[in-house]
């Protein structure tokens, strides 16, 4: 919270004051900060050093999008198409899509992302990603927690633990449209439960409307009372708080009760604020168009991207959106363009919108899947999993734009130059947020744990 207390240094003041629009929204909430600060584990914390990014939007492409058909240009693969591959015995397949250079930087991006390509000069492609896991659930878990083997806190939970949150009426870590069996990817493991991701419904959820609460938008568990009005509930809450207050006075030393009182007030504010934030009906036609919210193929993901912007604007620290079905073993030529089309306009819209609101400079946007795909095609029209070399990208929040970092070999099979392991990726993300990944630790079972275990090197070259 932008609270001006005597301990505020000149530097902190300047940082805060120059943080721009995002902070203005909270000016009215500062009065509540003072009391919350003392015992609220979510109150904002000072990072280890000046952050480049203050918040994160992570666009998670579940299934493993093919890098050689999207962001990793491999002319040699086209030349060698049809030849036997040294990777698995099946034949190399050229990308069916053209690559072109875009922007001043001349980044090579395929025709599958025409809209995102217009933002080429803002993108930082990391073309040398690799991780340790060749299967979806395990790679997904490693991407989120650094470990596929043990249950560990997720990236978002670490971020929230390290930085706290800027809005005391909102959860600090929001997972939009979380996939099945993913609790661990948004979980806190041994970190206190308060840092876990708040899952906000599945928009393409099927089934009777009654499951979805009011309307068809995404929902949060228990966010409204099925029976009584807000004013009636306020009266009930006043009664609850009176009982709590009396308990506090009766028993003198009861640290937990303060927390209970605070949690009710926060919950009551959330009931108000969240549905409002998730209601995009006030947005202009132009904005909706920007995100491709038009009832067509881009509608679902567009809504989530727009909601992500509304969340970060309101001070949510970490928003993750999942988009599924990128596992193209078969039907690559028909399915991959469909997936790309669903996200292309919304992502471009998000980047444009963030930039025009002045948010992009300190909002880190991350795009990527748990791994990429192979240059050969074991099933004819499809590619296999490839965790040895793939591409993710970042934009905004202190990363250089129009940059390609690292490289895979001639065919895009294996990362060979400036390799970026998932631990390095995590270390870099934390670094951008002003957190030293070696110092962000939590003591559990007798030792200090980190997101990056004993690994991780910050990729300094991509940081502005």
């Amino acid at each position: 919270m932008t609270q001006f207390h005597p301990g505020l240094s000149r530097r902190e003041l300047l940082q805060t004051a120059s943080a721009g629009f995002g902070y203005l929204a909270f000016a009215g909430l500062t009065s509540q900060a003072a009391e919350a600060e003392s015992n609220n584990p979510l109150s904002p914390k000072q990072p280890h050093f000046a952050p480049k990014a203050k918040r994160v939007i992570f666009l998670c492409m579940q299934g493993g999008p093919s890098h050689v058909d999207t962001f990793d240009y491999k002319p040699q693969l086209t030349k060698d198409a049809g030849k036997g591959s040294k990777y698995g015995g099946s034949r190399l397949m050229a990308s069916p899509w053209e690559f072109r250079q875009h922007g001043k930087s001349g980044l090579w991006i395929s025709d599958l992302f025409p809209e995102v390509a217009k933002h080429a000069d803002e993108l930082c492609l990391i073309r040398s990603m690799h991780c340790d896991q060749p299967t979806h659930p395990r790679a997904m878990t490693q991407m989120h927690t650094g470990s596929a083997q043990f249950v560990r806190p997720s990236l978002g939970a670490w971020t929230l633990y390290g930085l706290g949150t800027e809005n005391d009426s909102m959860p600090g870590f929001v997972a939009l449209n979380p996939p099945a069996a993913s609790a661990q990817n948004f979980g806190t493991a041994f970190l206190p439960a308060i840092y876990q991701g708040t899952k906000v419904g599945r928009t393409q959820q099927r089934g009777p409307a009654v499951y979805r609460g009011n309307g068809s938008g995404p929902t949060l568990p228990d966010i409204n009372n099925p029976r009584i009005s807000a004013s009636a509930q306020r009266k009930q809450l006043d009664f609850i708080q009176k009982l709590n207050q009396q308990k506090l006075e009766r028993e003198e030393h009861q640290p937990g009760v303060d927390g209970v009182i605070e949690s009710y007030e926060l919950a009551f504010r959330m009931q108000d604020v969240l549905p409002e934030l998730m209601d995009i009906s006030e947005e202009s036609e132009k904005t909706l168009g920007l995100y491709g919210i038009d009832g067509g193929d881009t509608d679902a993901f567009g809504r989530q991207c727009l909601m992500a912007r509304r969340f970060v604007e309101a001070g949510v620290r970490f928003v993750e959106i999942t988009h599924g079905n990128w596992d193209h073993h078969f039907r690559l030529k028909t399915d991959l363009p469909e997936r790309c089309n669903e996200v292309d306009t919304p992502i471009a819209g998000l980047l444009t919108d963030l930039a025009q609101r002045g948010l992009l400079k300190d909002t880190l946007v991350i795009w990527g899947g748990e791994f990429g795909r192979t240059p050969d095609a074991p099933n004819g029209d499809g590619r296999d999993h490839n965790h040895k070399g793939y591409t993710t990208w970042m934009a905004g929040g202190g990363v250089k734009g129009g940059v390609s970092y690292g490289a895979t070999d001639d065919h895009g099979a294996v990362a060979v130059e400036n390799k970026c392991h998932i631990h390095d990726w995590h270390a870099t993300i934390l670094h951008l947020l002003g957190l030293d990944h070696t110092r962000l630790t939590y003591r559990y079972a007798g030792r200090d744990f980190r997101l990056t275990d004993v690994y991780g090197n910050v990729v300094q070259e991509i940081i502005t």
Partner: protein
Amino acid sequence: MVNRIWQHLMGEAIVREPENFGASGPGPTHAELLDYLAVRFVESGWSVKSMIREIATSRVYRLSSKFDQDRFEKDPDNLYFARANPRRMDAEAIRDSMLAASGQLDTKRPKGSMISRFGSTLIGPNGPAMLPMATGTPGMEGRRPPMAGGMMAAARNRQGGESIFDSTVYYRSVYLPVARNALPRSLEVFDFAEPSMVIGQRESSNTPAQALYMMNNAFVIEQSDALGRRILKEAETTADRIDLAFRLVYNRPPTAEEIKASNQFFRSADTTPAVGKGASGRSEKEHKFVALSEFCQALFASAEFRYLN
């Protein structure tokens, strides 16, 4: 083991980090006591029951949690167990206590596994056959499985979002199924241990999710209704009903201030008769019952209910 049993009964263990007896851990506050208990445990033939009896009949177990300024200054963390540690009930105890107060608790053991009724299927949003979940428990929403139609319909008709396990069964919480990635919400919000990890000490957090659960969840409202019906039946006047509700929920009579606050609440609920969704068609009697149920819910929701003194 005795350290963990002690922790379970006393709130804090003798070695404060039960998972770390090593050199980097904090060590025992009462080394002799820990040794004594360990020896007693072995001599009793490793009987957990005997150990619980031994601790539960001790003087220290029966100590009051009353706050004492002098002692607090000498031992602010109560390392030496000079008083009982006030602590929050575990998730299971919170759910069971609500059921016990409302008179709904079924202490019998369910027959077989509830999960097995759904056949060999993935339980979760993307499973081929899923439990019909209202909005809410993220791990469990989805389409209905082909079987168990009655239960399904019952759960589906309920508003507000609850796991089928919570809204249709009143077994003790230890019998609730724990499917990976699909915890019953009643347990999930109150720091239930992550099922795939070794957790020696649970968190005891105060989160807005808990507050939302207590204010809005269908299961909580249902138990409040049940408690409301119970006190309507068992007591005549409003004063008696307030008294009975406090006795059932907190095991003690209300204080004078609490009686005053309760009466005030009933008066304020009376002055705003047309409240809420579907309230327009509500009769005077129904409206009064909703207020009574809200009152019961407030007792469940307040800190007094979830903290043990």
